Each structure stands twice: as C-alpha cells, then as structure tokens.
C-alpha cells in the first residue's frame, strides 16, 4: 500500500477512498506554551495538502508529531484507517511518512549518496552495503527529479540549496505513503522550484499524500489541492484551494490581530547615527554590507533562509570574525573585533538561540540578568549582592517579567519572559545599539505583543535597534526602515512607507 518513487508500479495500488493519514484531536503542550490544541488534520492519498499559518501557529509541532520527533499529549493517528502508535522517527518512517525538514538534517561528513540512503542502505550478498546500487540509485533519483547534484560529493561542502535538494531526494529514496515538505523552497531558485513542483505532482499522481508547508501564498495557490490553516495552535479551516482567495487565506492565517499587535508608541527616530557599518565581509557569508542605524530607530533586516541575517548580527557585535570592513558604534570603531570591545562600546546581541547562546538555564533569573554588568555591582572584587538584586528587581518590575522570584532557574520561565531577562541583561549594561535576532522565535503569540511593545519602548528610549526577522508582519509592523538581504549581500533598504510585501520579497529573492 505504499509507493516507491524510484520504481513506480512495483508497489500495490493505493486505496483512494481511505485517508492516507488522519490526525484527530491532537494536543501538545510545552512548558509555558500550548503548541497544539485539539487539532484535526486529514490527508487524502494523491492530494497535495498545504499546511499554512504564521510562525508559531503550530505547523512545525504538528509535523514533528507526524515524524515521531515529539509525542502527542492527546489524540489519535490513523494510517489508511488503522490506528497507529508513533513513538519515534523510526515508527513514523516504517509507516511510510517521510518528512523533509526545514533545518537541514543530513550528516555533513557523509557523501550525498550515503545521506540519501541513510534511512536504510541497500545490501547485497551477505548483508554488505551495495555501494554500486547506492551510487546508481542516487544518480537515477536526481535524474528523475531533474536536480543537478553530485552523489559523490561530501554533503557538508555543498551550498545550502543543494543540501536542500539532497533532503528532498532522500524522502523519495524509499517507499512512501505520506511525504511532508516543510518550507522546501526556502533556498531554491525559481527554476529549481518548478522542478520540485513537477516532482510533487508526480508523487501525487502515484497516490502519495503530500503535505506542503509554506509561507508563500503564490506557491500554495499553484501547487495545492487542499489548504489547512492553523493559528495559535488551533485548527482554523480546511478547504479546497479553489474556495480561497489571497485575502481569505491571509485572513484565516492572521485573524484580526494585525492591527493591534503593534501599538507604535514611540516618536520618529533622531538623526544621530548610533551604528555605522561599511563594506563588511566575512569569510563564509557576508559580502560588502554597508548601512547605518540611528538612535531611536528600529532597522529591520529581512531575508530568506541562508540570506545571512544571523551572520550579520554576529559579525556586527564582534562575535564572528570579519575579513574586511568597518564597524563604528557610537562614534568609536569596533577594534579589536571581539564581543568584549563590542559591549564596552555599547552594542549587544539578543540571540535567536536563547538556549545555547543566551541563557544559562540552570542559573537563577538574577544571575542571568546581571551577567554582562557584574563590574557595576562589584566592590573591591566582590559582588554587592544587595545592589545586584535591587537592580534586577527593578527590571523585573519594569518589564513585568513573570517569575516567582529572582532565584527561580531561568529555564523554568516561559519563552517571552526569558527573552525579557535577556533584554534586561543588555539594558543594565547601558547599550547604545541592540541587535535582536528573531526576537519572537519560540514565543507564544500572546507574549509576542509584549516583546513588540518592549522593542518599541527600547527604540523610544533612544536605542538603535537592529532587528533580524523572517516574519513579515513583525518586520512591517516594527521597523522604521527595512533592509533586505540575499545570499550575504544587502539588496535593498527602504523606508516604512515604501516597504511592501512584494518589494521586500523581490529583493529577498535577489
């Protein structure tokens, strides 16, 4: 009852009357966040089903439950009408559910061919790996899809777009009943996207149920048969694509929140340049990036995956080395290029990866907040605890950080409150420029507006805010000016008035 893309016709015919995959009443909670609340999702064989929603709507969580990465807290999963218990990725793969994840999930030391057959190597006599077949099948697979990737190349040495093709090919190397593609086109060229669409249609023609996750409306209208929209972890609608227009789809995704999500309270930015970056390049990504950010301004950077936003953020605060260019913070050059100097001059990074680059989860709230400004609390080499606690308490009150006490381990706070602790860390240090990278990643929708208000307030207090984001509403709602990146280059800078979704996306594609 499953289909082999490489050898079509060998598998048994698929019963098109029974849903290929049926999820009912799925609940999933994480500490502090309800990720999925009673979600239904049904996939018909041979149909392309788009799954849509803003970041944080619950798409990724739903996919990860299908893939066996997360367990569900409640609900049932049926494959072809039969209830199944998916406890691990292994179970999911056995049921024929193949997921192409947005983050590249490949072993970078392995060759492309090895990665394609990672799930199970074809073996010859005596159970040894049949390398000849692996190489031949990988080449045949790329041939069938039309992608141009060398199966013998070491995966880690390939550009992101080719790695993404390897991911896609891998999902098709074994028999499949359901293929899930999570933002598969984020780093593909238009030509590669059309190749991918041909493959997806062919998969559907073979009777495979395809889930297509994307932010891009035009793609969804082009490829999908059905659309399911999630919002805030809840199922909003499931309709044939023909019953949707751009407006109805956006309405389902965003609801009516867009107007009051970003209550802009600050005035217009001043004219003082707080951050000046000229012809900045790094070894791996950035190429000749120049811009300036003024005090009191939110400068929003947009770009697709791999555009270099995070790289830029890390380079301008002195975290990652640069190969050429100049960074001036509040009138002084960032030389030597390290974070110690950066903090001294008044530039700090609010990382996108709170867990590994921001917080010390086991440590209490107050130690996390005071980390960058211990010097201010020191007396003769000892920390004046009372002074430290008073200062942190002040921020806890100002930002309404919800924590039982200053001594709570910071890992027990919700994502939004953790973010506030990190912002406190930098403000305590007296920054001139704060670089925020995906400030609302992994944060509840309800708490997002608080973070937005906080960023608005930071700019209002005269900081220059450089914001890296992949979320269009966030970008358009918060920024005074919008900068767009593509493949390490700056492709456009526009004012809030000029910036439209279309212009931004065009610049992001390059």
């Amino acid at each position, binding site marked *: 009852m499953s289909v082999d893309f490489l050898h079509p016709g060998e598998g048994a015919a698929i019963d098109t009357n029974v849903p290929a995959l049926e999820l009912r009443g799925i609940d999933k909670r994480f500490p502090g966040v309800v990720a999925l609340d009673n979600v239904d999702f049904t996939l018909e064989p041979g149909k392309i089903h788009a799954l849509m929603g803003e970041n944080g709507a619950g798409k990724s969580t739903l996919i990860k439950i299908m893939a066996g990465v997360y367990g569900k807290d409640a609900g049932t999963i049926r494959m072809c009408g039969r209830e199944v218990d998916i406890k*691990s*990725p292994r179970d999911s793969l056995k049921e024929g559910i193949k997921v192409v994840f947005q983050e590249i*999930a*490949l072993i970078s*030391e*392995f060759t492309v061919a090895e990665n394609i057959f*990672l799930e199970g190597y074809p073996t010859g006599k005596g159970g040894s790996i049949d390398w000849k077949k692996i190489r031949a099948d990988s080449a045949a697979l790329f041939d069938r899809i039309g992608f141009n990737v060398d199966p013998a190349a070491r995966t880690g*040495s390939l550009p992101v777009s080719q790695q993404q093709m390897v991911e896609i090919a891998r999902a098709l190397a074994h028999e499949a009943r359901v293929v899930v593609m999570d933002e598969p086109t984020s780093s593909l060229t238009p030509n590669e996207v059309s190749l991918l669409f041909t493959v997806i249609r062919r998969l559907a023609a073979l009777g495979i149920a395809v889930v297509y996750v994307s932010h891009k409306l035009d793609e969804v209208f082009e490829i999908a048969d059905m659309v399911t929209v999630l919002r805030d972890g809840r199922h909003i609608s499931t309709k044939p694509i023909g019953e949707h227009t751009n407006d109805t789809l956006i309405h389902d995704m965003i609801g009516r929140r867009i107007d009051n999500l970003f209550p802009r309270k600050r005035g217009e930015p001043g004219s003082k340049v707080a951050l000046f970056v000229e012809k900045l390049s790094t070894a*791996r990504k950035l190429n000749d990036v120049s811009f300036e950010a003024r005090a009191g301004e939110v400068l929003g950077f947009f770009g697709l995956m791999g555009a270099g936003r995070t790289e830029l953020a890390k380079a301008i605060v002195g975290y990652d080395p640069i190969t050429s260019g100049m960074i001036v913070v509040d009138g002084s050059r960032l030389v030597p290029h390290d974070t110690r100097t950066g903090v001294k001059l008044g530039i700090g990074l609010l990382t996108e990866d709170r867990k590994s680059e921001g917080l010390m989860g086991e440590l209490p709230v107050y130690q996390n907040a005071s980390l960058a400004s211990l010097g201010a609390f020191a007396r003769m080499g000892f920390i004046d605890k009372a002074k430290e606690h008073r200062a942190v308490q002040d921020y806890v009150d100002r930002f309404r950080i919800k924590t039982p006490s200053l001594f709570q381990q910071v890992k027990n706070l919700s994502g939004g409150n953790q973010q506030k602790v990190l912002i406190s860390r930098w403000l305590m240090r007296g920054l001139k420029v704060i670089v925020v990278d995906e400030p609302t990643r992994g944060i509840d929708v309800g708490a997002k507006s608080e973070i937005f208000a906080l960023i608005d307030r930071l700019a209002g207090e005269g900081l220059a805010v450089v914001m890296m984001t992949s979320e269009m509403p966030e970008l358009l709602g918060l920024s005074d000016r919008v900068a767009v990146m593509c493949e390490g280059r700056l492709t456009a800078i526009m004012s809030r008035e000029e910036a439209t979704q279309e212009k931004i996306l065009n610049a992001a594609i390059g």
Partner: protein
Amino acid sequence: MSLASTASVKAPPSLLARLFARQELALLVCLILVIVFFSVTAENFFSMRNMTNVLGQASLALTAGIGCAIVFISGEVDISIGSLLATIALPLIIIMNDTNSLLLGVSGALLFGLIIGAVNGYLTAYAGINSLIVTLGTMFIMRGGVYLYTGQRAIPDDASLDSFIALSDGRLFNIIPYSAVIAIVLLAAFAYMMRHRPFGRQIYAVGGNPEVARLAGYDVRRVKFICFIISSLLATVAGIILAARVGSAQHTAGLNFEFQVVAATVLGGVSLAGGIGSLSGMALGVLILQFLSNGLRGLGLPTEWQLVITGMIIIAAVAFDEAKRRRAIGG
C-alpha cells in the same frame, strides 16, 4: 578527515591535493619517515627481527585501538580498557588452571569483557551518564577490585598450555607473531564492517549527528551500547595476549594502557567529537608511536624522553589537523 578535499565545489581539487588531504596518506608518509630516520640513525633498527618485534608489541594497542576508535567515532570515549586488561586475566588464568582448557578460559574472559562492556554501554547510552565519567569509574572499580582479589600478587599460569604460550612467542611461518596476526585479522574485519556494513555506517552517523541519525530512524542508544561491548571485547582479546606474554594474571597489567591507545587513536585522526576517522588511521597512529618508541630506545634515549616526545607529537598532530579543518571551512 577529508574536509579539505571537498572544500571547493566548483573546481574539484587535483588528484595530488586530494591524496594529500587524506589523513591516512599523511600518516603513512609520517610512518615511513620515522622508519627511514631510525634505520639511518639507530643500530639494529632496520632488521626483519626488529620490525616484526615492533609489530608484536604494537598488537595489543592495535587490537584494543579498534574498539577505542569505534567508540570515539560513535561520539563517546572508553578509558576503562587498561583496567579491563588486568580484570579479565583473572577468570582467564583461574579457569585455565582449574580446567586445563584454553577454550574455557578464553570464553570466561570474553564473558567478563561482555558484561563490563554492557555495564559501560548501559550507563552511557541508556542511563545517560557521560561516558568519560562512566569509564573513569569502571576503570577505578576494576583496578581496585583486582587489587583486592589478588592481594596485589600475580596469579601464575600453572596450566602452561602450549596453545596459550604460543600466543606470546609463536610466529606464523616463523616470521609474524601470532598476536600481530590476530590484530591484523581483527583490524581487517572491523575496517570492513565500518565501511561496508550498515551497522558501521550507523556508527558514523550516530557520532556525526545523533539528532539526524534519530530522524533517519536509528536507535542511537542501541548503536552506542553495542560500540561499548565491541570495545570491551576487543580489549579482552588484548588482555588475553598480554596474560600469555607475562604468563600470569598481573594486578598491574595494562596500567596507563588506555592512554597509550587514546593517544594513538587521536594521532590517527579519529575525532573525539565523533563521526570522523578511520581504523586504518588509528592503526597508523599506533605504529608511528610504537616505531618511535622502539627507535628512540635504539638511540639510547631514556623512556622519560619518549613520554615527552610522544606528548608533543600528539598535540602537534591534532593542532595541524585543526588548522587544516579551519582553513577548509574558512576558505
């Protein structure tokens, strides 16, 4: 360790560059240089007798090094192997003394090794304790246990079975020591497994990126568990050869052995971070250190200096490797 070889996507590097980027080739060149150097400078170095002797001496580290490298590649470490050498000698010698059977003695030793590997593997893979800590713990426990049991006296091999003694001084065709033959056969078998059996590739995948391996449906814990068992069983084989060589179960057997093996494995380009390295690299690492130590002794340099030089070589080798890797990524 062939990162440099594929750094450029557009223009494939020349054959020569690719060959030199291969860790194993660089190591082979080093080994030849060491041998040539001492053949010129040290007396009696370049003789069939000395060469095969060195091979025999290296066979313990070669055998145990297979397991050490496999555990490294899976992303863990096992430093309990030195103590294990002393531990498994007890059942081996005691059973042989009681039954006059090499087969029963060896079976007993392997069973012991299996249990120890299972304990290391369970505590690391399933209980989630850091493998350095686990094997540091079992290293002390086993050594302490052996001291307690023997009262710090050697237990002599009273059975003196011919087949057992042959393990220490027997030579195939009167040339290659049996211990070296065992090591080479095991090396070939496991090198084949690592390259051509699905399980070998699973080990690389698990060490290279456990999360990706899990998404690909691998049972990461089971793979690591089995690696620890392999490591202990191979160390058991090394322990049996050592017991044959000294003709007894010695409570001090294998002291610091784990560090010699770790040193050679690291020198051979097997990364502690997992997913990188090969058994042939490990084997070359063992041979380089063994020939070096033999040659330095031939030059009359005291053992103390050998330690100092070995330490410097290991750090230099890994630093060189790191620099090469950085350049490959940065460029």
